[in-house]
């Protein structure tokens, strides 16, 4: 069973879907564990038979079968019409990454919502600074009344179990943008501070432990471009300086 577990872990890494469960920076750790489990399992099989811990074996077997089956369901290809959305090319290496984008003569710093959140917490809200960030649009009746939506992404520090949604309020008077819930956008905008701490909006994301919307800032969008959901939508990296992980 340990050999089967090791092989399943190895297969998950090779499948390219590892990021769905664990931050890819821990891939080496899982690969090492998989290798050791195979080794330990084989060594164990070479030894004479010994009393079996039946409850342990049953639980382990049930877990292995269920997760392998369940993950095949999760990773099963969708119906053709849902596959129609184009996916962007794989991410560039750090050297190739653009730190900024220029639009109408204005330079926008490319940043992800998690990095911008940290930046605002560490150095305060840099009112007037121009940023471009991507994320999913979240609308609620309360936000609509306030002329705002939230642009958010899921940040995974270690594994999916500790995922946190991080977002920013974005100004959208009278819903002029016409953006819908769940739509992915790239926003080019200006950061503005608020005089009072804004209440945490009542939004939750399935799978996220918490939702953190920055309480003292609002993004004033200057251009909003609908985009396809990124191939890997989670935030795994939080950089302190440019080029940010975007």
């Amino acid at each position: 069973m340990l050999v089967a577990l090791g092989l399943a872990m190895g297969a998950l890494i090779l499948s390219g879907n590892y990021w769905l469960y664990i931050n890819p920076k821990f891939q080496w750790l899982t690969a090492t564990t998989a290798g050791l489990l195979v080794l330990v399992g084989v060594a164990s099989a070479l030894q004479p038979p010994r009393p079996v811990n039946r409850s342990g074996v049953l639980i382990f077997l049930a877990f292995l079968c269920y997760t392998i089956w369940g993950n095949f369901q999760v990773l099963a290809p969708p119906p053709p019409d849902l596959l129609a959305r184009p996916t962007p090319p794989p991410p560039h290496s750090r050297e190739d990454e653009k730190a900024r984008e220029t639009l109408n003569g204005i330079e926008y710093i490319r940043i992800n919502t998690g990095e911008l959140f940290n930046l605002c917490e560490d150095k305060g809200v840099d009112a007037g600074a121009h940023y471009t960030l991507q994320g999913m649009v979240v609308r609620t009746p309360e936000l609509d009344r306030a002329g705002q939506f939230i642009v958010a992404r899921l940040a995974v520090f270690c594994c999916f179990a500790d995922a946190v949604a991080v977002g920013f309020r974005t100004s959208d008077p009278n819903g002029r943008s016409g953006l819908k819930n769940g739509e992915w956008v790239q926003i080019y905008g200006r950061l503005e501070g608020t005089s009072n701490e804004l209440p945490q909006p009542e939004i939750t994301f399935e799978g996220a432990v918490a939702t953190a919307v920055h309480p003292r800032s609002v993004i004033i969008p200057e251009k909003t471009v609908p985009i396809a959901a990124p191939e890997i939508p989670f935030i795994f990296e939080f950089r302190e300086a440019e080029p940010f992980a975007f």
Partner: protein
Amino acid sequence: MQCQGGWLYARIFIFQRSGCSRRMNPISNGHDIFICILTAVFLEAAPFLLAAAILSSLSEFYLDRDRIQRFIPRSRVAQVLTALGAGLILPTCECGVVLIVRRFLHKGVPPLMAVAYMLTAPIINPLAIVSTYLAFRGNWWMVFGRIGLAVVCASLTGLAIAALNREGILREETPARIRTPQAFASLQPDPSEAHESRLDSEGAREHDCCCSHGCTHDAAAPRWLGVLTHTAAEFMEMAKYLIVGALAAALFKTLTPQSILFRFESNPFLSIAVMMLLAVLLSVCSEADSFVAASFWSFSQPAQLAFVAIGPMVDLKLIGAYGATFRRRAAIMLIAAPVIIIFILSAVIAAVLG
């Protein structure tokens, strides 16, 4: 397998509640979330559990009781300090620490030391300290607050358990006595061997092993093979508690709406209790729980502190492991004492901070 990010993302992420429970996306699926969390928790914990099983097996085969006894100080204060020192230099997380502590107890480490090490090691190890510092954006108050709470709580719990469980804290175990005919060929006991081997009346090599899983070390087999076999048995034994804990944590995360939590954020004492309950039920790794706590920015710092202090001492994965490893009274104390102590200390901090 080709990665279909948009599809996966839609299935696991886009599901929002706002006041009423409303699905944003018809293809969102609670079961997928559940399976992803279950797999993630197991994958995250497996390396640490395996590392602990290897460490435990190595100490079983290569570390004898006398050698360990030499490092055990007589005074209780020194015992606690030694345990804290061990926690600093021997980075372990809560997933595997019970295995290591069980082995140490078998080797004669006093319960006070063992409990102090078990409760603090996942918090005071360098990785956890760095992650706490990063998560709270360089807030040393949170870093030292977490360490302080852990040290006080572990010392008090260790003292209480050592005082009230004089007959020992480990569950009754039947030593696996192995008589291997093959061992006739190697009857000369090796004085450096950690295992206490001797000849029985039938002339077979008797082997008192302190495993609790009925392992059958072949005395004639190479020691490294014994380490691997022992590691397999240790891993299998503890993995079942990890699996049950991961199942419960995944179920909780899938079914409980976040919005419930925020109803308690304004009450300083209720928010502490709620954050502690959340830490126990979420069972997040001690290296990552600071980031989760920090994301609850609308909760008070004492509540966040209580979250990061209690999680590595009591969570769903640990409750099963405590029950399987320790006597009932000791296991109950290991769960109840940290909860009570951390709550009282956090409440005092909240009251002082106003």
